[in-house]
């Protein structure tokens, strides 16, 4: 009875245009006030403790990292690399857009951000070489949904917070399905391109691929820090997110210089001589290698007793000096004897750049653009967290009324097995995903579905991935599909046009959903091979 009132109340409030968070929170409060003996003080306190959740603390950090990485420059570099990699196939530019969305998804946990960052550049590019606007928008709207499947993903963090499944395993579990979904989209594009006779880009050679990879590499290293750090046991997912946020800030301001006080000042100026350039590049490669080496070897050997800091340090020094010398030899003329003169020629470039960074160090933190990124990230965090906190309150009322248990008993009593149960979950989430923001929906559904799934022997990590894929599809199906709104907003097409344009690829994602649902190995292989199975104690 109480359960029915609770659900009806939430739905009525929701459809009357009450904020989602308040609809959830207010219904829970009213139920507690009228039907339970709990004091409102403990409910108010819950609002505070829910806001303190350590797992959810990763959300503001991931949002911040993604905000620093969502500047136009990063998307441009990723697209350049993607075109160099797959552009030469039939329909290559569309495939490159999918690849770019996948890579960008690894920097950002949000789908709309992916659509805007990649879409604004890629759709224009595709139109220039003769793709139809519909085709281009359909590709981007769908590929953008990979943002929540490829780690880091905010929706996965929320799932972990709701069910106590480890965030690290969820992230690793998203890797293979994310790649499979991307490949499926690319294959569909390739088939359509053959059929429609879409153009291919010329193959620009390995050099362009390496150059593009180098440019995008600084940004892409973010995902290595996150996954490597979690997997290596060096930090908790929340700490990994904090490190990622600081790294993203550093890369955006000091290395890419897409924003902040040093905006658009190149590292090497046009007047620098070739000798200087070679010397500078050689030392940059050496140093960059040294840092990558130190970080990766740290992740790999964090638990080791035998490998110490000084071992790693000296191996790193020797290898990076070797790289520096090798580069100078390869690019310079004059053999071994000329190396010192090349390297010293690079010093003025270093001096100039370090001086620039030093002078602008404080301004990097306090300037209008940094402030704007911080405020944007805060806004997103607040919007998400206010819903999440209230959804937790709602979930608390649900469990307090023993509603999940009674639903579980009924469902098992009817004779659901894991196969039919997963169909039911998919249908439930597909419908719910039309009306609710993904993280809020997940927090409401997870406490009900999770215990039943455990009872029926469904793997917790697998269940999480199924839920995430359902949320993805919810983003590109009407009436309330976030990516549809965003795509229609940036292209100026009507919502109906975007829906039609996205339809063929939505079909692909549906096939993908069936694959993910009935092939648990797709999700569980990687995390269990690396981190061992998830154990549920309930």
């Amino acid at each position: 009875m109480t359960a029915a009132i609770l659900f009806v109340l939430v739905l009525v409030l929701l459809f009357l245009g009450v904020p989602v968070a308040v609809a959830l929170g207010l219904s829970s409060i009213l139920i507690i006030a009228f039907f339970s003996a709990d004091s409102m003080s403990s409910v108010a306190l819950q609002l505070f403790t829910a806001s303190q959740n350590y797992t959810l603390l990763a959300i503001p950090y991931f949002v911040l990292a993604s905000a620093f990485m969502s500047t136009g420059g990063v998307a441009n570099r990723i697209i350049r690399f993607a075109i160099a990699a797959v552009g030469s196939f039939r329909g290559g530019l569309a495939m490159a857009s999918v690849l770019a969305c996948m890579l960008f998804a690894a920097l950002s946990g949000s789908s709309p951000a992916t659509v805007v960052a990649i879409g604004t550049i890629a759709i224009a590019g595709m139109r220039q070489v003769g793709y139809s606007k519909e085709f281009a928008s359909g590709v981007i709207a769908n590929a953008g949904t990979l943002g929540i499947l490829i780690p880091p993903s905010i929706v996965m963090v929320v799932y972990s917070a709701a069910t106590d499944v480890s965030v690290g395993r969820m992230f690793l579990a998203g890797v293979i399905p994310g790649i499979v979904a991307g490949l499926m989209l690319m294959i569909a594009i390739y088939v359509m391109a053959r059929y429609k006779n879409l153009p291919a880009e010329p193959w620009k050679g390995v050099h362009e691929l390496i150059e593009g990879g180098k440019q995008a590499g600084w940004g892409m290293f973010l995902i290595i820090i996150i996954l490597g750090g979690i997997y290596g046991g060096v930090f908790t997912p929340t700490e990994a997110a904090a490190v990622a946020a600081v790294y993203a800030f550093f890369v955006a301001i000091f290395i890419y210089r897409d924003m902040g006080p040093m905006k658009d000042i190149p590292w090497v100026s046009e007047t620098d001589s070739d000798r200087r350039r070679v010397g500078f590049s050689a030392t940059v490669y050496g140093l960059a290698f040294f840092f990558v080496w130190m970080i990766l070897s740290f992740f790999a050997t964090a638990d080791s007793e035998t490998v110490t800091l000084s071992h790693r340090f000296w191996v790193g020094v020797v290898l990076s000096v070797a790289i520096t010398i090798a580069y100078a030899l390869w690019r310079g003329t004059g053999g071994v004897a000329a190396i010192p003169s090349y390297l010293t020629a690079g010093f003025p470039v270093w001096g100039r750049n370090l001086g620039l960074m030093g002078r602008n160090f404080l301004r990097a933190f306090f300037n209008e653009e940094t402030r704007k990124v911080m405020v944007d990230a805060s806004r997103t965090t607040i919007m998400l967290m206010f819903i999440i906190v209230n959804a937790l309150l709602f979930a608390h009322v649900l469990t307090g009324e023993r509603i999940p248990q009674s639903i579980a008993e009924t469902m098992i009593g009817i004779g659901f097995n894991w196969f039919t149960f997963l169909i039911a979950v998919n249908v439930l989430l597909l419908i719910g995903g039309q009306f609710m923001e993904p993280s809020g929906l997940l927090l409401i559904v997870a406490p009900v579905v999770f215990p039943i799934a455990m009872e029926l022997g469904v793997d917790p990590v697998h269940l999480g991935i199924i839920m995430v894929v359902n949320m993805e599809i919810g983003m590109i199906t009407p009436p309330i599909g976030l990516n549809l709104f965003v795509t229609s907003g940036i292209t100026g097409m009507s919502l109906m046009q975007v829906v039609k344009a996205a339809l063929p690829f939505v079909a692909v994602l549906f096939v993908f959903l069936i694959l993910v649902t009935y092939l648990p190995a797709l999700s569980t292989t990687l995390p269990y091979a690396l981190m061992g199975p998830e154990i549920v104690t309930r």
Partner: protein
Amino acid sequence: MGEFLIYGIMALVVVIFFLVERANPEAIARFEENVLAVLLALITIVSFSQVIARYGFNSGWGGALEFTRILFAWMILFGMSYGARAGLHLGVDAVIRLFPARLFRLAALFGAFCVFAYAITLLWASWLNLFGADTKGGAIFYWNRMFQIGIGLDDLRYPEWMQETFGLQDRIQRWIAYLILPVGLALLAFRGLQAFIQIWTGERDLIIAGHEAEDLVAENRNVLKD
């Protein structure tokens, strides 16, 4: 004593927000954004430096975790009223947009009222007893109890010099951390009421945002239109 104090603080904050906003709406918006940005920057820097301190210097600050978690709660509870003013909070507007204009406005007013009612109930639930509920307590009551007991937080301590100069207890009192709960809710109630009046006078359309990427789309609207 505690009760007067918390009512005083809540009233003071709301009145200051109200008056400053009347004089200069930009100033309050900027203040709110700066508070949020600083809180976010602080938690990020503290968490990051903890990792560096642990692996680089084998040290750390025992209160760091509790500190970041409390600031995170402050960010959310302070931010919820900012979100109501800035129209950040998501809602489903698809259904009410099908309503005739008069009913649409009624629904919009109801949405704003619900935000107000939500905040007031969490602050002071006893008003529901008018409608036959049997409930008591709320954020004000809870804060007041914490203020009277005066127990400290788990890990956060006052620095030595403060303990000595001011003769303080060693742990920071819980009520300081919980201060944001009544204050944040009071601000949310204020913003709910304000939105209600704005919708009434026709200054504002709705209290909700239709979808989460409205800002993002507004910034890039029609960039690709032919």
